[in-house]
């Protein structure tokens, strides 16, 4: 069964059948009141939520307030470990709490919570002197998406040798789903290494403007790309043929080396398949 049978709808329509409307409304208000104070310590303990003496208990209701915020902050710290390292534990917890109050999760899968964190950091006035933090958060979010991305078998290293060299210019590459390309004017590879103890491969002074994050098998790999290679990769990911992509990039980057660029992307194993455009 992949669909709920038709009678479910009818059942939902009958939900609360036999219960006076007044009681349903009172009940909904109860959930509203219990929810209101969970993320806001200024809201008093809801009426009727009591301790053993029958009076509202700040300490007892406070367990829920604490569980909610602490567990969501922990989830943010797990998703953004480098931001956590960079700003320190106390600052991170305060920052994450601000973010959570502004953009609380709207669904229960917490590895998918925090997509707006980099934007929030970028617009957070006290962090204006640390502009790289926004990019670090963006890279951590990209890493997470790649980590949980769909699995696919990357192209065999010899796949291109099976293509007629005369037709290579018409080759179209399909990337594996688990890939992201991140651009930054900051040395993210160095920040990453220091705060997440993971190396970005192939980084040179020239190849630090972009980082290719991909997961050809179980492990996420990071590859530093020079600007021209990153532009080339973007065009290929967009579905341009090898010839089209090479022409565009060559016109802007006089030193663009096609075979080196292609070799770099193939060894990162970011492509799942290749076909010749008819």
């Amino acid at each position: 069964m992949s669909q709920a049978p038709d009678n479910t709808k009818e059942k939902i329509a009958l939900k609360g059948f036999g219960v006076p409307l007044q009681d349903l409304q009172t009940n909904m208000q109860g959930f509203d009141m219990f929810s209101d104070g969970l993320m806001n310590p200024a809201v008093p303990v809801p009426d009727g939520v009591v301790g053993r003496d029958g009076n509202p208990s700040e300490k007892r209701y406070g367990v829920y307030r604490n569980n909610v915020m602490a567990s969501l902050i922990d989830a943010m710290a797990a998703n953004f470990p480098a931001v956590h390292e960079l700003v320190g534990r106390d600052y991170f917890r305060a920052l994450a709490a601000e973010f959570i109050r502004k953009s609380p999760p709207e669904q229960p899968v917490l590895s998918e919570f925090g997509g707006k964190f980099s934007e929030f950091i970028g617009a957070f006035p006290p962090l204006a002197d640390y502009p790289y933090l926004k990019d670090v958060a963006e890279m951590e979010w990209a890493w997470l998406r790649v980590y949980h991305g769909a699995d696919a078998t990357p192209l065999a290293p010899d796949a291109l040798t099976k293509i007629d060299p005369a037709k290579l210019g018409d080759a179209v590459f399909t990337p594996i789903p688990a890939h992201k390309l991140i651009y930054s004017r900051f040395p993210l590879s160095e920040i990453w290494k220091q705060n997440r103890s993971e190396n970005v491969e192939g980084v040179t002074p020239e190849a630090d403007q972009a980082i290719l994050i991909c997961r050809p098998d179980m492990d996420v790999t990071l590859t530093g790309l020079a600007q021209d290679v990153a532009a080339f990769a973007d065009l290929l990911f967009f579905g341009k043929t090898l010839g089209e992509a090479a022409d565009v990039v060559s016109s802007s980057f006089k030193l663009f080396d096609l075979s080196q660029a292609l070799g770099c992307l193939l060894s990162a194993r970011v492509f799942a398949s290749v076909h010749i455009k008819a």
Partner: protein
Amino acid sequence: MSAQRVNAKLPARGGVGLKADHYRTILNEKPDMGFFEIHAENYMGAGGPPHGYLEAIRRDYPLSVHGVGLSIGGADPLNKDHLARVKDVVDRYDPGLFSEHLAWSTHDTEYFNDLLPLPYTEVTLQQVVDHIDEVQTFLGRQMLLENPSAYVIFKESTYEETDFLREIVKRTGCGLLLDVNNVFVSATNSGGSPEDYVDRFPVEHVQEIHLGGHAPETDELGYPLLIDAHDRKVADPVWALYARTIDRTGPQPTLIEWDANIPTWEILAYEAEQADVVIQSHIEAHAKASEERSDHVSGA
């Protein structure tokens, strides 16, 4: 791939919550463990290492899937997208059991990531029953409902929790997951007796037991306030309550929940072995008692 898997049915033994920290140890050492339990929400990505490891572990061990995000006790309609994702996990891994909580975690559009308590009234009873009907219909299988840990008391409640659960089972045909640590925590926090709770519990519907550690605190009046922290060993009085529970339910798959300050594999596995010891001594005592009974009968 599924043909290579061990049978889905959970044995009446100790099992543990599956943690990423232990993936490699489990795959390398293939420890003797009754079963593993996962939180469904941790396996909802499209792919990647969590699924890679879980597929491999599922080949060798039975699995229980425990949801923490359906908000069955809430006043809002269930999140259909989330229910569909739960079904994907259940369909993919063919667990022996699927369970969720008598609690809520979503209200309006906000997800609170905690198992929040509800008053036990005619209105909430009908809500929970409707939600369980919907889950069981959509998943095409029975679910177990777990008794919550509670820190507060609702003045408006008109049902005892054990009666509330009994009525839910009667109306939905769901099974029950009895969390013995939650019994101890809730009873202590409300000034009740954990033993009485277990004695009143509709044990004939129990298909799984949970055990976990709690943190002792006090409220502003000086009364004990136990926190269901899952961050330490199971407390001695909870083990004693567990033995009492097993005497009523008979041997059941028993999960050790340890979700924060996660210990080494050896320490976690040792806790599960303690559950095996309790189950084994129950079985032996039971066998001895029925032997004595039959001696008595034949001697009479």
